[in-house]
């Protein structure tokens, strides 16, 4: 009984690969980790060119836990609470939700300005996979290679 309760209350999390997809109307092929974070915590709401950002989430997927932890530095419960605070104080609108990866791809392809995440790379006429880079890591690598060149 105690073992059963323990399994119920303390659940381990498995890791998975996360790919970021956007609607092809979005004129970007790469975003920094900070830019992606700003989008998913409601700080940034507009793409360059006055196009509204439409973030899509799939809270029922284990991929969601991986995504929010990796890119927003929040657990899925902290992510949910963050958005509840924004929505019920009038400071933001809740992201669109999908219940499966298939629905996530559909919602990203149907909505101009939409962005979402999936477990494998996808490129169609309505959806494209973009690169997410770590700006700080790039600067570090650049400075390191510069140092090596000087030697």
């Amino acid at each position, binding site marked *: 009984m105690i073992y059963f309760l323990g399994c119920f209350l303390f*659940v381990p999390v498995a890791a998975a690969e996360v790919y970021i997809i956007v609607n092809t109307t979005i004129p970007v092929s790469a975003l920094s980790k900070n830019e992606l974070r700003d989008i998913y915590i409601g*700080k940034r709401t507009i793409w360059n060119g006055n196009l509204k950002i439409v973030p899509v989430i799939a*809270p029922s997927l284990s991929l969601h836990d991986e995504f929010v932890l990796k890119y927003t530095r929040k657990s899925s419960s902290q992510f949910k609470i963050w958005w509840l605070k924004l929505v*019920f104080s*009038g*400071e933001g609108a809740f992201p669109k939700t999908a219940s499966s990866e298939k629905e996530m791809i559909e919602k990203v392809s149907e909505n101009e300005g939409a962005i979402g995440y999936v477990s494998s790379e996808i490129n169609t006429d309505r959806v494209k996979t973009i690169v997410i880079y770590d700006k700080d890591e790039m600067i570090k690598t650049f400075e390191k290679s510069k140092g090596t060149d000087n030697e």
Partner: protein
Amino acid sequence: MNRLQIAISSFFILFSACMASYGMEPVSIHGFVSQGYIHSTGNDVIPDSTNGSFEMNELGINFSTLVSPRLRMGAQFFARDYGDYGNDQVNIDWAFADYNYKPWLGIRAGRMKIASGLYNISRDLGSARTFIMLPGIYMESFRELFVGIKGIGAHGYLPYGFSYVLSFGVIDNPSNFKDSFLFATLLPFTVKGTAARMTGLSPDDFTNVRPTSVTWRNSKNIGLVWDTPLPGLRLSGTYWGGRVEEEMVFEMSGIPVSQEVIFEELAVRVVSAEYTFSDTILSAEYMTAPFYAKDQPRRKLEAYSASLTHRFSPLFELGIYYSELYPHYDDKDGSEEREGVPPNYYWYKDFCYTFRFDISYNWIFKLEGHVVDGLALNPQTYYLDDFGDVKTHWEIYLAKLSYNF
């Protein structure tokens, strides 16, 4: 719900239908409802809570839409019952237009939530926190003051992790300040005590002390948050307040008297720190609330709290906090008895423990206990005929079920 509120709701629903039919952004509708149960030992928190009470619920629904990519409009209706307060009357909680010019500058106009500490803007939404009752710095008895500010404001995100919110206008209460604990109960105590000292009469010679009007002027709300370079560490400072003019009437030995009380400043200042590490959140907050009436000595409330929460699984979270609240920072043991109540009314020390269960994405159930020392600002104990008939050490137990969509 009055005619204006029904008209606004109807407008949003019709507006939504029209926008959807033109392929534009539909209106988003979100809501929450919660029902609580409270049981206390020794003293009442709300009427008859020593025998258990269900008079503790909240209900909110909001409508919002993007009129253009940069312009958002919305409104939230809110009703609550908390013993003698609220009584399920529906009011406008917030209603404003928000124009996002740039990430660093957004402009708002309307009725906005007040930023005070880390949790005030979401204080009515139990799903957004671990605890049922917030620590002393949020002064539940003075909730009417924390509700909203009506006017204009600006907000935005600045470089280096800073964000800000500014609002100017009037602190606004959709029900009535005259019925609030501060203006209808606590201040009459102070007025009676002050009048008795000035006239040499007994406080009991002053009867039927009550406010006839309460007016806020020059109110402002300032909030600054810094997401520090240390991942998970967030610091914030908030201020809100203004000038208050209160008209009071009372009878002095049977003779009617009218008195205007002017608070040159009535404000709340909070500094907060919150550190999130994986599924653990540590936070600490310090609040001072200066208030001084014209020709009266300057006074200040003081409160501080520290909390720790940890989520063990998607289902289960545990939280504890400790908080202290003092109505007079310079008389923490109540030895001066400034308000004519016994010394144990001059502090409120609260140890709280909460078990939160996220039954599903939308349903949340919480169990909570409080070990309390003191009675400061606990409304029910100010209504007693005999102030000796209270318990200094007491407990509060709560259960609450919430749903949001």
